[in-house]
């Protein structure tokens, strides 16, 4: 079972990997966007870890809801509302449970992804974060490693796609041949989930 500690660890690991990969995310964004994805997410996830240290969060749902609210209030751009909605909706879907299982997490993330789709209006194949998130949520039933592999494959699979949403869409066909920065950061978020889980196994 996954408790609030696990979700806090997920957010901490995610913040660390965003820190580590910020330059790469910004470089991907420079190719087809506006060169700020890494620094924006870095600012947001730093605020998330700071808030989690300051405010008590007793349940998995509370951790994700707080994290989502922080992202909305600090990231800006499209990524702020979209990632914020992903985590906030997922957190709300988890309710007040003190511990949740992987199936409940998958269900909650699916609610989060639905929220992202409703807000951003994108569909699978539009070269967005959804192209990593949807395969990851589909694969979560097979474990965190499978979800991570699916997310990373989904991010790489955005390379030949033409962007239809977000700033990269203005490039038309010229967006083809570049990996989507949003799908890449989504893959980082799912990879952090696996790292948080393996850390848990190692420490217990």
């Amino acid at each position, binding site marked *: 079972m996954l408790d609030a500690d696990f979700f806090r660890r997920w957010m901490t690991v995610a913040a660390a990997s965003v820190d580590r990969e910020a330059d790469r995310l910004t470089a991907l964004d*420079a190719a*087809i966007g506006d060169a*700020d994805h890494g620094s924006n997410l870095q600012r947001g996830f730093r605020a998330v870890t700071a808030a989690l240290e300051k405010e008590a969060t007793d349940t998995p749902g509370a951790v994700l809801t707080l994290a989502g609210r922080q992202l909305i209030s600090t990231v800006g*751009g*499209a990524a702020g*509302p979209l990632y914020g909605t992903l985590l906030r909706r997922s957190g709300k879907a988890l309710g007040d449970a003190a511990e949740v299982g992987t199936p409940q997490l998958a269900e909650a993330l699916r609610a989060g992804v639905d929220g992202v789709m409703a807000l951003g209006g994108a569909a699978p194949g539009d070269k967005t974060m959804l192209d990593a998130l949807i395969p990851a949520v589909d694969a979560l039933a097979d474990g965190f490693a499978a979800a991570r592999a699916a997310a990373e494959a989904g991010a790489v699979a955005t390379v030949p796609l033409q962007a*239809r949403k977000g700033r990269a869409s203005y*490039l038309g066909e*010229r967006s083809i041949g570049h990996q989507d920065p949003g799908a890449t950061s989504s893959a980082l978020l799912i990879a952090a989930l696996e790292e948080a889980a393996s850390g848990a196994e190692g420490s217990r």
Partner: protein
Amino acid sequence: MRMLINVPETVVADALRGMAAAYPDLTVDVENRVIVRRDAPVAGQVGLVSGGGSGHEPLHGGFVGPGMLSAACPGEVFTSPVPDQMARAAAAVDSGAGVLFIVKNYTGDVLNFDMAAELAEDEGVQVAKVLVNDDVAVTDSLYTAGRRGTGGTLFVEKIAGAAAAEGRTLERVESIARQVNENSRSFGVALSACTTPAKGSPTFDLPDGELELGIGIHGEPGRERRPMMTSGEIADFAVNAILEDMPPSSPVLVLVNGMGATPLLELFGFNAEVQRVLRERGVAVARTLVGNYVTSLDMAGTSVTLCQVDEELLRLWDAPVRTPALRWGM
């Protein structure tokens, strides 16, 4: 790349402190990133709130003041502001007559202003929104995020601001803003990429001897790259792209806008070419504005915006305005 900054992390806050020092007519909340005209809220007047990523100065903060915006919310460089900023601005400028959000059509701006409108309405502020999407370079808007908001934003903010200053209702100010947007079209050209402080190197490679047609204002590459053209050839291309999309049936306001690194000497020369093309195409010019108004950091290049006006819109354009960047009649 050498920049006149301390560290990239503080460029926006540093600029806001400098604006505060330069313009005592503005209340600048550096921490919460809201620029408000000092006398807000103005009794009986609709409040106008705009905002967007930083890096387009003087847009939007330089357009705050009597006759134009009531407040502006600057985000990080090229990143839309967060909802908390616009909700705070709305609360600061609402006199009870309601608040109009002027939003450039970018995914991030739209999402954050939508969330801000919900927050403000929860606080009892009546909010209306108008989207600016004047960029004709985005052709297949069905398959993209839609046309971008660029130079037309200046016309929307000035004319809607004049309507608000006359005490028109929120509904009326909104419909005037919408009309100005529908009557406006822009086309932009880059002679160089721009450099964001966070990245420190140009956002795209533009080899010597080439230019980028159909750019936006965020250092994103345009739709097409060509061998360098003369000022006259660029004017032909840009104005024709606009007229193809909107053949004007009334006189136009002309904005010849610099992207940040192109000298006024070149912009005035380019304006002469723009006026020639308009004359050749039989388009009457009511007013012309030349300068750096909707910029893209240190990008070299220009954009042309045309806005069709009837007598009423022209009267509102001519109405007094007192902001850091636009100032006449008062």
